[in-house]
Every structure is written in C-alpha cells, then in structure tokens.
C-alpha cells in the first residue's frame, strides 16, 4: 500500500512514515502545494493524507485538482482547523475522512485501513487475522468458524488492535478511539481495562491465540509473534 503525506510539518510527516513502515505501508511525503501536485499528477496512491494549510497554497485546491483528474485516491484531511464549515467543505470537495490535529498515529492508521477497505469493497468486507474473521458489515466475529457473542464496542476495539498489530497502544489512545466525540471530556481511561479483559476472555474462550499482550506501564499490544 502506498500513501502520500502532504504536510508542511516535516517532523509530523516523518513520524507518520516511521510508524506506518513496519505495517507495510509505504509513505511518500510532500511539504509544499507545488510538490504535492507534481506527485499526484505523476503517481497513483491508495490514499492521500492532506494538511489544509500549506506554505504555498490551500489544501482544498489539491482536493479540487484530484477531483478534476478523476483520481480515485482516498483522502483524509489532517488539519489543526476544527470548524464545522471546513469539515463540511472538505467532505463536499471529496475528502473521505477528517482528522483533527493532534491525533494518535494509531487512530490515523485504522482510519486509513477503514478507508482502503471501503474503497476496495467487493461484495464482502472481512478483516481476517489468522483464525479470526471480522465481518464489518454484519458486525460479527468468528474464531475458527465459531461465532462470538461480542458487543459493537468490542468489535471496534478488536479492529483497532488488529489494525495496529505489533504496536504498543496507550490506554489513552484506545480510550479516545472508543469514545469518539466524547474523548475530549474524558479524563479517566480505566474503562479500557474492562473492555480488554472481556475481549481477551471471549477470544480465548473461542480458542483463539493469546494475541493481546499487556505492556507494563504503557498499555496493550496485539502481538503476532
């Protein structure tokens, strides 16, 4: 998978690139409007991460350009701007998702995966990890063909963990992912523990491997080793 990061804060771009690399995502970065346009015109990407405020141009113009050229890249806007208007304008111009800075890299990663899944949708929409199969549409999880009795939130958590396989995730990052809009008001992330515990129990009950590891002091990790 190949994505283009259009972001004038080079360090942020570098961090994204470094985080995604072990998960098989190739990243190219572009710090200016002009350079970004060149890259878009010459190459195809699976996904474009777009910062709206560029030193030599407006991110929205890149969106328009993509649309004009009938490019099929999925676009996720990553911006410090957080108003309803820019959000709506972004979606109207063809963006697929909008992530406000600051964000967790883990969150960005699963958003990209979800976007790619939607783009490549061909009849079925399953996420498969060894013996675990998650059907996104019907919201079901099977382990070795046994259906699990699992809540929506647990599926969400499972997708988040698998999407970030081999990454150490802080309780905060998981909590923010699970609580969505409410995250800004939450100062207690203890509820994550209960969800992890339940998910672990259900998976092992169904005979799945013990993938969820607790990393001392830091958080959790979906370990595939």
């Amino acid at each position, binding site marked *: 998978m190949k994505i283009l990061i259009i972001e004038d*804060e080079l*360090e*942020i771009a570098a*961090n*994204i690139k*470094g*985080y995604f690399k*072990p998960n098989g995502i190739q990243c190219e970065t572009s710090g200016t409007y002009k350079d970004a346009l060149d890259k878009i015109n010459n190459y195809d990407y699976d996904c474009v991460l777009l910062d709206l405020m560029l030193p030599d141009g407006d991110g929205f113009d890149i969106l328009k350009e993509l649309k004009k050229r009938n490019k099929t890249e999925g676009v996720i806007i990553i911006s*410090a*701007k*957080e*108003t*309803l208007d820019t959000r709506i304008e972004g979606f109207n111009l063809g963006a697929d998702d909008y992530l*406000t*800075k*600051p*964000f*967790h*890299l*883990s969150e960005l990663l699963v958003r990209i995966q979800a976007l790619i899944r939607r783009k490549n949708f061909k009849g079925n929409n399953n996420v498969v990890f060894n013996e675990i199969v998650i059907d996104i549409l019907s919201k079901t999880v099977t382990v070795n063909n046994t259906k699990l009795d699992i809540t929506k939130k647990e599926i969400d958590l499972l997708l988040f963990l698998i999407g970030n396989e081999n*990454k*150490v*995730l*802080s309780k*905060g*990052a998981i909590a*923010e992912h699970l*609580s969505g*809009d*409410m995250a*800004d*008001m*939450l*100062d*207690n992330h*203890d*509820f994550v523990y*209960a969800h992890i515990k339940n998910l672990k129990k259900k998976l092992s009950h169904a005979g799945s491997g013990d993938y969820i590891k607790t*990393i*001392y*002091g*830091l*958080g959790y990790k979906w370990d595939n080793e």
Partner: protein
Amino acid sequence: MNKKLLNKTTTTFLIFSVFVLLISVPVFYYITERLYIEETDETLALHRDEFLKNKLPKFDAKDIALWNKYNRNVQIFPKHIVTKDSLFSKVYFDELENENEPYRELNTPILIKGQPYTYVGRTNLIEKEDLIISIAMLFLVVIIILLLGILIITKISSRKLWKPFYDTLDQIQGFEIDKNKKPHFMDTDVEEFNRLNKSLNRLIEKNTDIYNNQREFVENAAHELQTPLALFQTKIDTLFQLDVTKDQSQVLSSLNKDVSRLNRLNKNLLLLSKIENGNYPDKEPIIINEYLKKHLEFFTEQAKAKNLNIVIEYTEKLKIEGNPSLTEVLINNLFLNAIRHNNKNGKIIITITSDSITFLNTGQETALIVDKLFNRFSKSNPSSQGNGLGMAIIKKITEISHWKISYAFDNNLHCFTVKF
C-alpha cells in the same frame, strides 16, 4: 428607595412652591391688612378734613341731632372725648347682621360755635376671618393650579427633553459585550446628551475591540497550539514502539498522560472560544430522552469503576430547540461531572420533566461555592483530573441558548438543573 429623575425634580419644585406659598399667606395677609387700614385711615382723614373745611363753618348746635340721625359713619358727640386726633380700631355690634363688626374710628376734637365737640368718623372694616379665608382660598386655588401646571409641564416637556437620555439608558442596559450588537443612540440637539452618547460610543467601541482581540487571541492561541501538540503526540506514539526500560516506560507513560491532558485542555479552550464566537448558530429540535437512552451505555461504562448506581426518571418527554453539538456537550459534561465527582458506590439520579433536566449526585459532603462554580479554571477539588473548563462550558452553552443552569445542595446531593 430610588426615585425617577423626573419625579425628583418635580418633587423639589412642588415642595418649594408649597413652601413659598405657605409662607406668603401670612405675609400677604399682614401686608394686605396694613395697606387696607392705611387706606381706610386716609379716607377717614380725608372725610374729616372735608367736614372741617366745608361743613363745620356752617354747622350749628341744633344741626347735630339731625346730622347724627342721618349719618351713620360720621357722628358728632358733645364734649371733647379726646384732646387730639386719635385713630383706633374698635368693634361694634351690628344689629342687622347680629354680629360684631370691626371698625376703624377717627376721633377729632372740634369746636362748634365755641362749644367743644368731638368728630367721630368710622368705617366698617372687612372681618379678619373673611379676609383670611379669602386669601387662603385664593392661594389654595393658586397652589392647585400651580401644582397641576408643574406636574403637567414636567410630565410633557421633561419627558420630551429627557427622552434621549432614557433611550441611551435603555440601550446600555440591554448591551452585552459578547453579543455582536452595538447600541444605536438616538440623535439629540442637547449638548450634554450628545456628549454622553459620544463618550459611551467610544467606551463601547474600545471595550468591544479589546474583547474581540482577547477572544481572537484565545482562539488563535488554541489553534496554533494544535500543531506542536500534534508533533508532541506523534513523537510519543513513536517512542511507545521503541524498546524502553521499566523506568523509561514510566516516564513515557506519564508524559503520554500529560500530553493528552494538554490536548483536552486545548480542545476545551477552543470549544469555549468557539461557542463565544457564535460558531454554533444552527438549531434543531432535539429529544433529550432519546439522546440519553442512546448514550447511556457509554456513561454506565464510565461509572462502572466507581460502582455507581444510575437512576433515570423519564417522567416526561423533553423536547427542546438547540444546537445539536452544544446540547450533546452540555449533557455529556453534566453526566460526566456527576460521575467524576462522585464517591465509590455512590448514586446518580437524573430527572427529566417537560422543560428541565436535573442531575443529582452524591459526592463531597459540603456544598460547592456557587460564586466560583461556573468560572474558568476554578476547581473545587484541585487534585481532580478535570481541567476546570467543564462548568464554564456548561454555563456558556446555557447562556448562548437562553437556558438556565442552577446548582443546589440538598440532602447531601449535588443538584444541577438546566431549565430549557
């Protein structure tokens, strides 16, 4: 007690007029009486002089009886009663009117054919009581006319005169610096009012500028902070993936907590300034009961760690008009506050009526200080993880939506009510 300006001037006028009139009644009476008596005396003297000059030389002793018979006010008495002219007041009984009448009398010793006689001239005076009553009545009428006149004139002319002033007063009273509505003072040709209006305009303009700058500053600052915070966050996420020692992981973990706290603080500051800047104008009907039901699972989950007992009394359906985002923030904040500031094994009771929602929760056993409760960064419990903006956001949302938030402490329960 406060009086209106117009009434105040009128009252002063009235008191002064009544005072002057009351004083002037005796003075007027005294002067009138004096003038009257003086005039009467002069007339008496004139009559006497005329008598002495024209009548006396032809007068005979035998004429006296006839004279006295037909003249009521000039009588000739035998002998000298007085040795020289004397003027005095005297009361005679009037048989016709059957009452005492005051008279002014002039006695002059005269000689008729060498015999001593006394000329007695007198004039009936107006009775004192009559005079006093007349004057008092006159003055009463004058007072009434004057008072009515003053009242009507001040009511009409002053009202017209002070109209620009009252207009200005009403406008400033309705002025709120955070609402983008500047007052428009009416034109006036009175210099003082013009000056007042100009000064107020200048004051308001200056303060609005300062206020707007401040507001923009907060929003810009919060916005500008997003990028370094994003850098901070992505770096910590990257660090999480490295092999770190136990000690390092502890530092890293607390760093992560700090940055997420910083994020929340910044997001809430941004939210607050966005609410203040009127970025949430759209309104639509919202049914609170449905919102609560939909998100109850989330809140219950949050309350699990403290083992809280949550009771929701849906007495009635609460349908309101409001901005959906802000309404959600309001309910979420209230609910999360009730969880955050609760005791272990405590309880939360939510009551919904047709026009209000009330959150009752257990918690610290003393009432919160209402004055500070809704201020920014005022934390009742300094050790709590809250950023001190939750209540300020709640307050701002209710203000901007014209709702009312109130706090009470009753039966050891903290009670927050929003009236829609």
